[in-house]
């Protein structure tokens, strides 16, 4: 496996009313192509700042962020924009859909910006709608969709240009637990079936439990790392639960 993204002792300092806040304090990590990684921590732990640096949306104050071996600090703004458009998909907690465009158009516009020819755009948008289960909603405006459906559109849009890396900020943050489970299963399928790399940040341990690897952040540092590969036998899990319950 090859490393898709890596940070080396990365820091991020914000200046606020003459005070400085160090949101990220020396994080080194490496994510392999095809991995599903969850970065979990309470608010203020630096996880969103880290995600923005991984997604080339923010620059490190110190240290390096390498995407496919290339130091992002050496790229100009134009190159960073190109990288984001072609290789990185980003799912925002607040979905960030275009309110006046319907579901189909919200997905297709990302391809237009990526220079995908018309015929292929139509084909790929159809495939993505099927993948996220929204074929029947193609002509609806975002305001007529539920939270879970909007999140699905946001994921389809993020996948539009077949990014090597998909980043999601609190993908279940605004959803009830059942809808959230559907989204997490979708992300896991994106990762296992299509071989895309997925990194989510979340404060929700349930969401984190879907990942292959969980990094726990606190005060801008990694405090723990856990591998979770493989599925458990649900029959056995239920058996153990009932054993306790019935005594």
């Amino acid at each position, binding site marked *: 496996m090859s490393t898709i993204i890596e940070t080396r002792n990365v820091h991020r300092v914000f200046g606020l009313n003459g005070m400085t806040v160090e949101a990220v304090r020396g994080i080194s990590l490496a994510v392999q192509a095809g991995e599903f990684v969850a970065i979990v921590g309470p608010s203020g732990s630096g996880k969103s700042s880290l995600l923005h640096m991984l997604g080339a949306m923010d620059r490190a104050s110190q240290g390096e962020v390498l995407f496919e071996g290339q130091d992002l600090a050496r790229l100009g703004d134009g190159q960073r924009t190109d990288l984001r458009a072609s290789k990185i998909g980003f799912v925002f907690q607040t979905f960030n859909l275009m309110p006046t465009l319907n579901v189909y158009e919200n997905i297709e516009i990302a391809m237009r910006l990526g220079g995908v020819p018309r015929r292929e755009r139509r084909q790929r948008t159809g495939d993505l709608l099927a993948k996220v289960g929204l074929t029947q909603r193609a002509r609806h405006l975002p305001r007529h969709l539920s939270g879970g459906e909007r999140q699905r559109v946001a994921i389809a849009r993020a996948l539009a240009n077949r990014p090597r890396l998909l980043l999601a900020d609190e993908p279940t943050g605004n959803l009830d637990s059942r809808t959230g489970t559907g989204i997490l299963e979708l992300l896991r399928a994106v990762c296992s079936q299509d071989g895309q790399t997925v990194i989510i940040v979340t404060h929700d*341990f349930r969401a984190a*439990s879907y990942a292959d690897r969980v990094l726990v952040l606190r005060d801008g540092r990694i405090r723990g790392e856990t591998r979770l590969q493989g599925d458990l036998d649900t029959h056995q899990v239920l058996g153990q639960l*009932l054993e306790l319950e019935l005594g």
Partner: protein
Amino acid sequence: MFAYTILGLLARQPHHGYDLKRAIEQALGGSREINFGQIYTTLGRLERDGLAEVQSEADDGRGKKTYRITAAGRRELEAWLDQPVVKNESFKDAFLVKLIVRHLAGYGDALAAITRQRQAYLKQLRGLTALAAEKADQPFVSLLAEGAILHLQADLRWLDLCDERLESLESSS
């Protein structure tokens, strides 16, 4: 607990042992086999305490008995159902005991212990989440799984708190 499950089934209608076994297994999502021994031991105890009685005995020579609840059994069941539950047992935390002993013994490195515990909880959480999704159509089984998930989420948050508090404890000593 098991005795009340059987009393509950008898309160609806008389049953013989095999019916009880099947009804309980069905309520448990078919995931667990109940043995007859447990059922007959419990029925024997209920009969001894006057909470259930034999209604009839089949004359097929195999002695298949049908049991029914008594008036005292019904009062006992209803009193138990109406009594609110006080949480005590579930506050017990075996990992906290290990953290305390680790500290008393002077071993330190609570972080490594916390990290291992977090891994164990996360793996359990992953299994329970899969279970809750798989049994979404079975209300009681999925409630059981969702309850365990919420507990584990709280346990995982609490591990973060352990990490935070013990880090300052270890650095100040």
